């Protein structure tokens, strides 16, 4: 599957509205945590980390860097996140189905130890890919928008 066959904005919207929603609490907690954490010698690195993870896009960028190089391509990420080829398109892209799938696969990742350390945070491989994909899509969308302007 390539992204040329689908709307990038659509995937981003699906990711944001569906799958990202299940993690939004986590994200907003990190954001607010980063603003609140007291600065001490022991926590400087944590402050830096949390500031960096202050928004989903930043998390996505960090995830992207943490992934092995061959997995960073848009096509590999979208396949990995959206699931098997050949599944009915509307099912794959339904925010509800995607969110549930992400949740289940993340749980399974943690169970099987398929995790990624992203600047110290232990994330399920599936959710890390999701964040990375969201960041990548957001970036390409911004480039397109600015060039069309």
């Amino acid at each position, binding site marked *: 599957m390539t992204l040329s066959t689908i709307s990038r904005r659509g995937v981003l919207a699906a990711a944001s509205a569906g799958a990202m929603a299940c993690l939004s609490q986590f994200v907003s*907690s990190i954001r607010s945590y980063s603003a609140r954490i007291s600065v001490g010698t022991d926590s400087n690195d944590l402050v830096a980390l949390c500031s960096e993870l202050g928004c989903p896009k930043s998390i996505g960028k960090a995830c992207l860097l943490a992934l092995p190089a061959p997995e960073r391509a848009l096509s590999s990420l979208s396949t990995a996140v959206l699931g098997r080829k050949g599944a009915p398109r509307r099912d794959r892209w339904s925010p509800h189905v995607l969110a549930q799938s992400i949740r289940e696969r993340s749980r399974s990742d943690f169970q099987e130890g398929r995790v990624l350390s992203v600047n110290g945070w*232990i994330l399920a491989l599936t959710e890390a890919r999701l964040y990375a994909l969201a960041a990548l899509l957001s970036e390409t969308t911004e480039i397109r928008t600015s060039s069309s302007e």
Partner: protein
Amino acid sequence: MIIDASSVPSGSILKSEVCIVGAGAAGITLAREFINSPLRVILLESGGMEYEQDTQDLYQGQSIGRSFQDLIASRLRYFGGTTNHWGGWCLPLDPIDFESRDDLPYHGWPFPRSHLDPWYKRAQDVCQLGPYDYRPSSWGITPDKVPPPFTGPDFECKILQENYLRFGPVYASALRDTPNITCYLHANACNLVTSDNRSEVNELTVKTLSGNELAVRARIYILATGGIENARLLLASGSQGSAGLGNTHDLVGRFLMVHLVYPGGVIIPTHPRMSFDFRTHVDRSFLSFIGLTAESMRRRHLSNIMIHWSYNFSPVKEAADAVKRLADFERSGNSWRSDLSTVVHNFERLAEFGIRKVLFGQGVPVESMPVGCSSEQQPNPQSRVSLGHRLDSLGMREVIVDWQLVPEDKRSAAETLKLLALEVGRTGFGRLHPLLAEDAPWPAGFYGDAHQMGTTRMHRDPKLGVVDEHCRVHSVANLYVAGSSVFPCTGANNPTLTIVALAVRLADHLKKQLA
């Protein structure tokens, strides 16, 4: 009665059936067990009834290994011992702590936990705690109140009881009023004088800082001076030039262990309004914490660990506090401007909090949970206490502490935190940022605590232990050791309840021996 040894004429010989050296948790417990018995007991205390700097300075020593707790500040040398400043956390060691484990060298006690249970029960009374029941459900923490992953299979909720009982002030009057017990203050045990074949202690040399020198002659001697001083006194005793008393196999002072304390990481909870904090129940104080299940420790080859957490709350808490202060103008005082600013800046959060509080009774949202760990240290013969050449004011050689860890200590801690990260994620509790990895240094904030243990370890085999299962020094017929120095391995739980249980057990044993 309680007598100041400085007032006893120098050269006096004091006689009794039992001589207990040290009036801390172990020594006082032992002495109490002999109240109104037909046996005469002498209890020797280095300090007075209050803190005195010159006595405290007798703890002076040198650390040459990993950075060790300050030898003077971490202990107290006066009546009541270190219970004069302890935190009062009490719980028995876990059954697995007593087990011999193929995966952990030197692990295990000569008996199972069940053997010690009757004495643990009596130790509860000595420490003035609640019932000997450490099931969380008995303290109101029913399984439905504990969120996964702390319901197994790897982690579970545990509890400890809390009472920082000061043994000195609490038990002084009972000991003072007992005719068969005499406590000598400012009486420093300096040398155990033995028979020619060193199989029996004949006399204990006692000195005061004022210059008196006394002797104690007893049928039984018990050292209860703490995890480092017990070893020091054994090493300092015996004939000149010897390796010390009870040290045929070069074990005295070795296997020094403490609990390893470090920040484990931060959990961001998925549900900010989760509430998982239990502290009090009826009129007793207790604290919940997270531990590994025994099954998980066995299966994954992990040491024991205590995991505590705290909460960082949303800024709405500060704003709500500011509202309260503003409502009470006098309390707000000069800070009303900053309080008002806090309220204005958090108005949206406050409104949401207010609605949730009123409609759903929800509390302040949790932002993050810093996780703190206290791990079991693996027994390590290279971690040791020995004697230096510097002398203290009494002419005794000061200690040299060479505290050392093995790689297994960090591997186990890092594996446990990784497992916690996986379980926290798998169950949807949140996400963890662990602060420890096996291939990285211990995190900032790492230290060994003041629970000094293992330097006169217990083992049935004299080649592996200084004392036998009855706490008697293997090669000396009438010399016993009480306190955490006999722990062959430590578990992760606080040691005082076990120290007291072992002291009560030893008293029972001696009463039978001396009957």
